[in-house]
């Protein structure tokens, strides 16, 4: 069992390593054009240089703050509205069309309107993230409540749960698993959105780093931005999975 698991882990680690090694060799031997595909060692070196100069830290922290604030601004109302939609059908009838109208529009397509409404400052980026996170979370929260097995509603009623207790002991914990899936999706979308938004209308952040370095043809620096996104995407989903394990010990 133990050796089997470590073989599995070995294979899992091997694939990215092989990819990197291949890239390194092809780039060093100039089979791949090193101007466009600088070898990983060069990218790593650039990463360290940028890190030491402090420039990197500034871009990363700006993006992270935007993601965090935007995420909260999107998730909190989404959970509230989603729970109401799941619990009261009149809320569902009221909010469903609004959600349906706005959901298919990519948030980036609304960026001009967001810029008109909130200016070019930080807040417009936070709003962009918030809107993109809002939809998967609101839909999953509503679905989470709606899909709670009817028998638990009967149990709550039979044992005289008040509206408040029903909400706290049945609706919220019952909806939580599906809700967290929505938050996990929202996290991925937030990362996509921030990078794209920073490419279009920002003077800092990871997206800006990628775009400006591409324009200046500083490709190793551009790759550093890509590596960072990959890293933070992985980190966020790890954190959320950890949170999930904490919140759902019964699963």
């Amino acid at each position: 069992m133990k050796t089997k698991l470590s073989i599995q882990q070995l294979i899992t680690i091997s694939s990215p390593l092989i990819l990197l090694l291949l890239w390194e060799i092809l780039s060093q031997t100039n089979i791949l054009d090193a101007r466009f595909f600088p070898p990983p060692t060069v990218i790593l070196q650039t990463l360290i240089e940028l890190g030491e100069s402090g420039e990197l830290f500034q871009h990363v922290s700006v993006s992270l703050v935007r993601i965090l604030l935007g995420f909260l601004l999107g998730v909190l109302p989404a959970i509230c509205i989603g729970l109401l939609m799941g619990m009261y059908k009149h809320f569902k009838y009221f909010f469903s069309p609004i959600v349906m109208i706005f959901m298919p529009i990519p948030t980036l397509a609304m960026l001009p309107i967001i810029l008109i409404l909130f200016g070019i400052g930080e807040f417009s980026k936070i709003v962009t993230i918030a809107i993109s996170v809002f939809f998967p979370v609101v839909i999953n929260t509503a679905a989470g409540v709606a899909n709670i097995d009817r028998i638990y509603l009967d149990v709550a009623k039979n044992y005289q749960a008040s509206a408040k207790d029903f909400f706290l002991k049945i609706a919220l914990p019952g909806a939580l698993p599906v809700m967290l899936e929505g938050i996990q999706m929202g996290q991925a979308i937030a990362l996509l959105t921030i990078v794209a938004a920073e490419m279009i209308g920002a003077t800092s952040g990871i997206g800006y780093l990628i775009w400006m370095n591409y324009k200046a043809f500083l490709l190793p620096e551009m790759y550093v931005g890509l590596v960072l996104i990959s890293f933070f995407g992985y980190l966020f989903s790890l954190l959320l999975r950890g949170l999930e394990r904490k919140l759902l010990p019964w699963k």
Partner: protein
Amino acid sequence: MSKIQIKQLSKKFKKRNKYIEALDQIHLSIQEGEFVCLLGPSGCGKTTLLRILAGLEVPTTGEVNIQQEGSSKTPIQSMVFQENGVIPWLTVEENVAFGLKMRHLPSSYIKEQTEHYLRKVGLINFKKLYPKELSGGMKQRVSIARAFANDPEILLMDEPFAALDEQNKFILQEELLSIWQETKKTVLFITHSIDEALLLSDRILLMSAQPGKIVRDIPIRLERPRTIEQVRSDPEITNTFLEIWEHLQKEVKQTR
């Protein structure tokens, strides 16, 4: 004055513009401390009747009266649900305490009452576990403990052992009887198993196929405590079994 009094109760459901009569003129009374089984073919409306008593459905006509003897704070009824009635995100302990917590009783009382019934059903060492870690039989023990811990006027049981295997079913039936004998609660128990009804009840109410009506009222005069061996070997009970069997056969054939 009987504990449960049901008068002229009927229930109609609307399905695709057609009314379906689920229950027709149910009339019955159950005495304090009686263990009554409601036995009938599937789809005869016995669950509907129980759900009306549980306050989960409203009757179309007629009335239900459950006499309140304890203080007005005593809950009228508590239900033991079919499998899956245990709430998965609450621990065994929290599930058993559920009714008491919903009524916001003092925590010392909740703890005492919960521990008492956890001990009774043999789950005291499992109290911190979540239901996913329990077997089907253990889950139903949680469900039973939850209902008894709530200390209601009457207990309603909706085929609580239907999903269990034979061995577990016998064990749980005997455990239920032993707890019931200590508390002497009035119980209305739904089942489609004749053996189960014969083992558990003081009286069997036999229902017809849809629309559900109570067609026979059969007293079971077998001494308690009973065991399944006694039920199987008693000649009078065997006759009753055959009688009920024939009735059910007839009802099932009629609906075909």
